[in-house]
């Protein structure tokens, strides 16, 4: 079954796995972003393990939903979700950003099967998703298209060109998600370049805006359901999140936007999450098949 529809408890557990993956792969690569991947882990898990109809075993499945991360820099969470969902073996995460691996610093269609369109330059993704949604509607394909954006990214003008376009064409098969963690690389979003009132801006562009606690799995499940039931306009999940969520010393600190933890910090983070760097790395190394990754087993 392409759609898994996990229980809330299973989703919470899987989101924890994803967070552990993020830390373990960053500890190995010693390059990449920590903050956004951790703030996106909960809604990402709800998307990949409950909401979306995806088929890692048949990437060109014509009935599949399409997803696109406009914030290409949060590859640690994208790849963790893909690995946990069975797009490729979890062990591959340990080659993140390495020359011999297939996991580029930013998503690359031709390196990582399952990525629909490469991304990495902010502001472009919602336009891409709009094209996917419009093309699918032209062909009569009952498909939803999901597009994850950042809050700092809202400063890009093209986001608003796309917002106008999707509403003009009443693309109700689009669901945007904004990781509203209020931090960007240079500091607090409101200090760098204010974007408030963000929900009102999107409503003003004729979108259906659904504000949720981006770490409340039940609220996210419900939010995506409301989006799916909304006809005649595109929907936006405005996910209020905390940068670095789940790691005490990273939470709400913009300095963790674009840097990885060192090995000691990673081990500490993983101990806060009930495991250790060695134990979780060993779990990744054991997962050598592309499949919905099994649980870590007792003692991890």
């Amino acid at each position, binding site marked *: 079954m392409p759609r898994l529809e996990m229980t809330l408890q299973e989703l919470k557990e899987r989101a924890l796995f994803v967070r552990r993956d993020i830390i373990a792969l960053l500890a190995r690569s010693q390059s990449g972003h920590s903050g956004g991947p951790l703030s996106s882990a909960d809604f990402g898990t709800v998307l990949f393990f409950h909401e979306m109809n995806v088929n890692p075993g048949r990437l060109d499945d014509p009935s599949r939903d399409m997803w696109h991360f406009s914030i290409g820099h949060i590859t640690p969470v994208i790849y963790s979700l893909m690995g946990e969902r069975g797009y490729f073996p979890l062990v591959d995460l340990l080659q993140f950003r390495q020359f011999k691996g297939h996991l580029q610093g930013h998503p690359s269609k031709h390196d990582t099967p399952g990525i629909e369109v490469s991304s990495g330059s902010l502001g472009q993704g919602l*336009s*891409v998703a709009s094209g996917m949604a419009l093309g699918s509607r032209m062909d009569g394909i009952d498909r939803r298209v999901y597009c994850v954006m950042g809050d700092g990214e809202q400063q890009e003008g093209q986001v608003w060109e796309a917002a106008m376009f999707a509403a003009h064409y009443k693309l109700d098969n689009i669901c945007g998600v904004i990781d509203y963690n209020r931090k960007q690389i240079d500091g607090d979003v409101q200090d760098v370049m204010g974007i408030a009132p963000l929900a009102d801006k999107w409503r003003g562009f004729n979108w259906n805006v659904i504000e949720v606690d981006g770490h409340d799995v039940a609220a996210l499940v419900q939010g995506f359901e409301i989006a799916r039931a909304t006809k005649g306009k595109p929907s936006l999940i405005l996910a209020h999140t905390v940068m670095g969520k789940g790691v005490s010393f990273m939470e709400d600190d913009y300095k963790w936007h674009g840097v990885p933890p060192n090995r000691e910090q990673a081990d500490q983070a993983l101990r806060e999450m009930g495991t250790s760097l060695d134990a979780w790395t060993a779990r990744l190394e054991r997962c050598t098949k592309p499949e919905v990754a099994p649980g870590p087993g007792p003692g991890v």
Partner: protein
Amino acid sequence: MTGVTPAAPQAPASVPSLGKPEMKRTREGFGHGLLDLGQRRQDVVVLVGDLSGSTNVSFFAEKFPDRFIQVGVAEQNMMCVAAGLAAAGKIPFLATYGAFASCRSADQMRVTVAYTDLPVKIGGAHGGISVGPDGATHQAMEEIAIVRSIPNMKMIVPCDYWETRKATVAAADDPHPNYIRFGREPVPVVTGPETPFVIGKANLVRDGGDLAIIACGVMVYEALVAAQELEARGVRARVLNMHTIKPIDAEAVVRAARECGAIVTAEEHQVHGGLGGAVAEAVVQSHPVPMELVAVHDRFGRSGKQEELMAAFGIKAPDVVRAAERALARKRAR
């Protein structure tokens, strides 16, 4: 070279009437090419950024309204919407002025379209100084340099109405991104409906062994006029229509260098990074010969009539003749 079969030596097509040529707009060739495609392929869709009339995609819009997408004045969005449509299985053609298609949405072309290698077809209208009265902002003269520097992109500069029409149709069959550059004003028709057109394969339009003139776009006509003048001076010039700048037909270029010993390139584009540069890259790496580049020399355009601008910017047939004489003098001095 990617995907291009090396050519057998080819007979030149019939030489057009140079004295009083038929004049036709290349943008009309784009519009009619899209009409051809609309009938032939259901997966072709057309996007425009509020320029339906002046890019002639209005022909398609009238006939196939369900496959026509108005994007408004938002070229960056248009480039990426086209990418999304391609990812969903469509063959999208987008149309705007070349100045915007190549510069304003260059990042979108690079990252979303080319890096993903999606079959997005970019129609860049109003290319070159021949745009005329609109002036510098709308006279696109940097597209070749920009587009050919981006991996996976192909760059096509058809010479007339028929070639633009054929290039448009041919682009749809190529599973990679393409950029087609065409102009505003009527320009001489130098090919016909039967003239062959293959992306990446230059057309020999006049044979000769003393010197080769390699031209693209409207400069193919100017090159033919120049070749006629040179013949009167006892010089037999070969003229190659290099309609595809990338991938360049390196085989035809190197053959011209070997057999003619001197090359003039002619383009309605900035001298930096254009056709002349592409030809030089091929020549210097295999068979260096004297080369002269007829192009716009690092200047912005200005308002005026097509003919007076081309003369003022040094890209008319007499300029090609003078460049040929310089190249021949250098060849003799070797």
